[in-house]
């Protein structure tokens, strides 16, 4: 268990290209403590990789501070920061065998030969790689290379572990297996870890907390559960999981709740309210006060017209662990997705269906002045 403490203050990065200046990271503030597994999540080009590379010292900082245990990290070169990092391409040294790759950081630290052997053997055991110690990286499978990269990053007891899309090059099954492995070792060694990915399922599965990035800005930080169930913006609700949006008018406020009307006149009383930032407020259709967001698996679907919205089923997609119904509703601007753990009898492609909204599961994103 460590008491390490990473603090990022107003961190910004501007790339100067020939034609323009691109702000890749825009005033980010973060705190990561102890043995936390922290994930930076976002679409490509959102600034998450730039941020982790600035923490590693591989990218210079335009503005702001990175403090590690109170010391200003930006004053140290990469090689002085005592960190471990796993790259997407693994970046194993192709001319060194597995043992030499893992021992590399220990040799630099001028550690006794016997001690090096001991520590490399231990970490390779931990990753079930002992038998392959004398292999060269090109002779290893993707998953094995991944383990060597992790071993190399951890063997010299770094202050933190950075993982930059480490699973992107693995096939789907191995990806699930390796992310569990990374999680297990991280908890076993109790090392602060920062993980970068664009895969929201991966992020939810491994993280203690995660940060959602978009266009260089930090949008929301929280536990996976918080971010999924209480998104603070339209972007996050759309990026993490699926979401259906319905434009709505505010009828009145009563106590803690707000009574809203959907386009077909159906009224709901909602208690989860989020005021929209100006930029996202612009995306709300004119004439409406906001949008109601509901997750597809929180809807009910039935044949009798007792739900909030009625429509025609365009397509039924059987996906194994659940079935997705895509419903055309004249009263919604978009096709509505409804996920059900088992097929619902009586619903057919081309047939009528009624969508139900359970009020406690819906969130109202409203314009600020409403």
């Amino acid at each position, binding site marked *: 268990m460590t008491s390490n403490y990473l603090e990022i203050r107003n961190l910004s990065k501007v790339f100067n290209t020939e034609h323009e200046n691109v702000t890749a990271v825009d005033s980010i503030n973060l705190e990561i403590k102890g043995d936390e597994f922290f994930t930076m999540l976002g679409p490509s080009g959102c600034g998450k990789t730039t941020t982790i590379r600035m923490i*590693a*010292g*591989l990218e210079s900082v335009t503005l702001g501070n990175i403090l*590690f*245990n109170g*010391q200003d990290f930006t*004053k*140290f*070169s*990469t*090689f*002085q*920061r*005592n*960190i*471990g*990092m796993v*790259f997407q*391409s693994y*970046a*194993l*040294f*192709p*001319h060194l065998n597995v043992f030499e790759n893992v021992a*590399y*950081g220990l040799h*630099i*630290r*001028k550690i006794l030969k016997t001690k090096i052997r001991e520590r490399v053997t231990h970490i390779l055991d931990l990753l079930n790689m002992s038998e392959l110690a004398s292999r060269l990286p090109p002779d290893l499978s993707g998953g094995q290379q991944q383990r060597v990269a992790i071993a*190399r*990053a951890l063997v*010299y007891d770094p202050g933190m572990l950075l993982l930059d899309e480490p699973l992107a090059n693995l096939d789907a099954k191995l990806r699930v297996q390796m992310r569990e492995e990374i999680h297990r070792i991280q908890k076993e060694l109790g090392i602060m870890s920062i993980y970068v990915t664009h895969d929201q399922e991966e992020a939810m599965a491994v993280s203690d907390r995660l940060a959602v990035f978009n266009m260089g800005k930090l949008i929301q930080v929280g536990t996976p559960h918080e971010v999924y169930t209480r998104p603070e913006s339209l972007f996050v609700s759309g990026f993490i999981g699926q979401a259906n949006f319905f434009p709505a008018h505010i009828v009145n406020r009563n106590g803690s709740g707000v009574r809203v009307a959907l386009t077909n006149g159906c009224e709901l009383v909602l208690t989860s309210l989020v005021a929209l930032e100006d930029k996202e407020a612009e995306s709300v259709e004119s004439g409406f006060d906001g949008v109601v967001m509901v997750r597809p698996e929180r809807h009910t679907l039935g044949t009798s017209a007792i739900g909030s919205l009625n429509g025609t089923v365009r397509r039924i997609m059987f996906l194994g662990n659940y079935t997705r119904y895509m419903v055309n509703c004249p009263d919604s601007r978009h096709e509505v997705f409804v996920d059900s753990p088992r097929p619902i009898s009586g619903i057919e492609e081309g047939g009528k269906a009624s969508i139900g909204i359970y009020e406690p599961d819906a969130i109202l994103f409203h314009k600020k002045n409403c």
Partner: protein
Amino acid sequence: MAYANKEHGGKLVRKFDWLPYFSGILTIFVLFSFLLYPISKSVILSFVKSGEPMDLANFTLFNFENFFQSISYQKAFIHSLVVSLSVTIIATLLALPAAFAISRISMPFRNILLALSVIPLISPPFIGAYSWVILLGKSGIATHYIQSWLGIEIPSIYGPSGIILALSLSYYPYVLLIVQGSLAATDPNIEECAFVMGSKRWRVLRTITFPLVMPSIAAGAILVFIKALGNFGVPAILGGEYYVLPTMIYFQVHGYFNLNGASAIAMVNVLLTLLAILILTRLNKGRSHVTVTGGTRRSVQIKGRGARIFANTYCWGLLLIALTPHLIVFCSSFAERWAGTLFPTKYGLANYFRILPEVQTPFTNSIILASLATVICVVFGTLVAYTSVRRRFFGKWALDLTIMLPFVLPGIVTGVAYLTTFNSGLIVLTGTSAILVLAYFVRRIAYIFRTVSAAIGQVDNKLEEASAICGATWGWTMRKITVPLVSPGIIAGGILVFATLISEMSVTILLYSARWKTMSIAIYEYVIADELLDASAMGSIAIAATLLLVFLSSKIIGKSMAEMFR
């Protein structure tokens, strides 16, 4: 030296990593003082009258006026243009059918053909030049027979026709190798597409194939032009009274020691070269077609009998003619008696034994000078290549340009620059081995730069980042990761530099001293003294050593010999 970032009670320790800064500053210093400074000083000197101090007050166009008023200078200028243009046109026309045949017509042994085509490029043209004298000179072996059997009066080998002949046959492989490489790399789908749309073969060739390889043809042709314009050895041996710019420079330096005048001629020579490059880039503007594919599929091979007969006859015939000088050099080196007959009347090793006492010093000198220059080239060429590939900084284009500058400058121009700079002033190097070593270094650093740049480009930058993450300083990363991974490129480049320096002629002729006479000078002296058989023996040694080394280098890097010259 401490590399560690040991933790002292959890605190990180800062340590200044001075090595990259030291290497950077040293590299800049070396490039500036031995490359940029001599060349710019030579430029300035051309604006000052001979004997006057370098001063703004003494700025004059005298040397250039002198140049353009003097009949002999004007003639040399015209001669250079005529020779270079003729060589460019002839070499290109000779090479194109061969390039097409090798890449598109089904031919056996095409790899051997390509490998042998490298020989004219790596052996110094002046060695080939005097074998044309042996063959077609006034008392040449072929001259006599052609005249008595065919009754044709062949033009004198001395003068423009001889120079153009020797240079064309020496340089056509540049066009051949570049265009053949480009033809072989063209996406076969493009031509097939044209066939599918109903085009006949000739039409496809005219409308698709030829335009696609046009940039390569231009690149090859311009390389030939630059090389022909800067060549000293061939016009020195075959020129006679027919002066071109490089021989004129030599004449100015050795005849009158008029460095200012020589600088002015050198400037004109350089301007012509730059003009050629400018025209090339203009021609190629918007013409760079991306047709190279990663696929291994080769383009459709023409299998017709007539085409195959033509291809084999033409390619092997051309190669045989181009290699004739080398064969003659090789044969005549074993000839003990050879007078007035088609073939020597007695063979043996007498020539070799005779030159043995005289060859040792120049041979050792060449090896020492070439080795030293190669080591310096490798160190700084690698550093500059690393910087250029890995670092982004303001004025990077200037660095790339500086490195490639001597590549396009005629050797004799570099020679003049070195003479003018290190003859007097702060550092005096004239007559020392250092001036040759440094001039060689400047002449060849581009070779290392190119091969190592390519090699570093192949190595993922993430490997160096990973090394730094593990705690390695820049120097440790270079030593343990980067250099080991690019070592094949470095070694191959080094051998190539070494091999081509053994018989370097253009700068050596201006900078050598009695103590540091090299192989090429020794051969040149034999030729001048008309001791052609001795010259052949020594030339054979030089060519054999060069060929062996280039072969070795191609094996190390795992490329074919032809690929190394593309």
